[in-house]
């Protein structure tokens, strides 16, 4: 019997597999047994009410999809009163995801959603900070540190900082999040991208640009997860292009304590359960007692030829 449980700070998860925010809702319980998931991370809720971006909001690209949903939101009050209760019936811990336009708004909503029934808060700092002319908080270390400190003061719940892969300095941003009091970091959100329908000559998305997700992003996000895991001492949760247990194992080998699965669920609603089963089977094959044994166990690089690279070994 393999032990799949992992600890994200103080929070113990039955297994390292959870949905990625915005790709999961209680509706999935109509198709699969969501009780079996390590945690239930739900759609980001913003401090303000939003209708989201004009359609089309989704487009297909090679090896993935673009989305420009834009976080439609009914605000924190509706979230606490209407959404949180919907998840009471599930055993798996509920992880809220929040976002806001300014550090103060962010801290305010963070406090508001720190209610019983919420086990941790994923702070989606990949969204625009209007005080830094629209740049996402997590684009740079300074605003990341500033907002994390405010968030830390606003709540006693575990805070997971979700980073943006659009930053050119994600390691520094990860360190800033840790310094600011994050209990874990999630690597990462979608990569800004676009596509064009050459028949109509229009952008495929109503917002022109949107977030790329799916298998196409995996090698990029895996690299960032590896860099971040080596830069911080808090747990790193990998998220990007995970379709199979093999993908999840790659993320854990480079140092991730847990993983989030997003787009895969759209293709196959049972994808997360298949990842959990695949992890368990792989552990058995490798005769591992606990999945925790593989976290960060990346071997040395280089083939045999590399041994003589600059002279006889």
């Amino acid at each position: 019997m393999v032990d799949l449980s992992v600890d994200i700070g103080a929070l113990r998860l039955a297994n390292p597999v959870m949905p990625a925010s915005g790709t999961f809702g209680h509706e999935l319980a109509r198709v699969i047994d969501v009780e079996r998931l390590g945690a239930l991370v739900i759609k980001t809720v913003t401090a303000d009410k939003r209708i989201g971006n004009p359609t089309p909001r989704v487009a297909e690209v090679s090896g993935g999809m673009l989305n420009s949903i834009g976080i439609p939101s009914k605000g924190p009050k509706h979230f606490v009163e209407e959404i949180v209760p919907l998840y009471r019936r599930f055993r798996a811990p509920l992880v809220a995801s929040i976002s806001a336009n300014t550090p103060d708004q962010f801290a305010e909503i963070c406090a508001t959603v720190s209610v019983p029934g919420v086990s941790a808060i994923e702070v989606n700092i990949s969204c625009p900070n209007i005080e830094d002319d629209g740049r996402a908080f997590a684009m740079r270390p300074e605003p990341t540190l500033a907002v994390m400190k405010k968030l830390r003061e606003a709540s006693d719940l575990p805070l997971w900082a979700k980073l943006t892969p659009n930053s050119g300095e994600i390691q520094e941003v990860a360190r800033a999040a840790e310094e600011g009091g994050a209990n874990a970091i999630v690597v990462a959100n979608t990569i800004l991208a676009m596509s064009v329908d050459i028949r109509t000559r229009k952008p495929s998305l109503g917002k022109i640009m949107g977030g790329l997700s799916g298998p196409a992003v995996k090698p990029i996000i895996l690299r960032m997860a590896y860099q971040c895991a080596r830069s911080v001492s808090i747990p790193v949760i990998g998220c990007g292009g995970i379709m199979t247990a093999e993908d999840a194992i790659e993320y854990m080998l480079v140092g991730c304590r847990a993983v989030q699965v997003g787009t895969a669920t759209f293709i196959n609603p049972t994808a997360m359960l298949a990842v959990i089963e695949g992890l368990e089977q792989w552990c058995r094959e490798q005769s591992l007692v606990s999945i925790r044994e593989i976290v960060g166990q990346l071997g040395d690089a280089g083939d045999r030829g590399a041994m003589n690279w600059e002279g006889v070994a």
Partner: protein
Amino acid sequence: MLPPVMADRADKPSLDVIEHKALILRHESVNADYRLIEVSAPDQARKAVAGQFFHLLCPHAGGLEPFLRRPMSIYRIDREAGTLSFLYKVTGSGTRAMATLREGDRLDMLGPLGIGFSLPLNRAPIVLLARGVGLATLAPLVALATERRHPVTAILSARAPEYLMSVAEMRADGAQVITVVDSDMTSEVDRVEDLLHGLRAQGRMEALYTCGSNRLLLLAQAVARQYGLHGEVAMEQQMACGLGMCFCCVRPFQVENEITHRRVCCEGPVFPLAEAMGW
């Protein structure tokens, strides 16, 4: 205006959605554009309601494309035989890939999904206004309504006679079918409007259902408003999850002069005619 019979709605939270690789029993082309695929799916056939759809995984035609699932309305439900059919137009990568499936292959289908059509009370006569793909969506409503003893008139609009579909099936199901086509201009909006007023005069129109054309949507809205009819429209939007989770599939609706945004996959695809927005 007659209230809809909620009992016919399919959006009960209890409803569980099935992901299943169904055996393909039949797969043939209906005309130059359309293909009909029939699968064995007894459980889904028992659950499925006219107006609902399935989210279909198209076979990979080399490359991860088609990447996402494709939504398709239920075209025919045969509970006895335990079969479901889809009538689809070959459009792009997904439907092209679907067209390669052979009898005996499996079709990975997720569903039934969404909210189906609702019927007025007291066997009131209904009128269907369908064009193009909309036909596939409205067709099963004929069977449902005639089964429930509603007199049904179906106005089918197409580019040309050879593109008219399932006229015979609908007649067999007991509907009066009126066909209009662009080629002889019978499909022009004002002429279809005359048809509707005529049907109303004959007492054959207490409710109005439409799908597949923006011009017909606007017409149906006007006529329904004029006579205070119960009306419904089935709408389309690009989808990712098909389950209500991703908010890709929203459309704007007008409720008491307020714009609200609804998800086609779970708050539709069937919506109150009065609230839909054309352009």
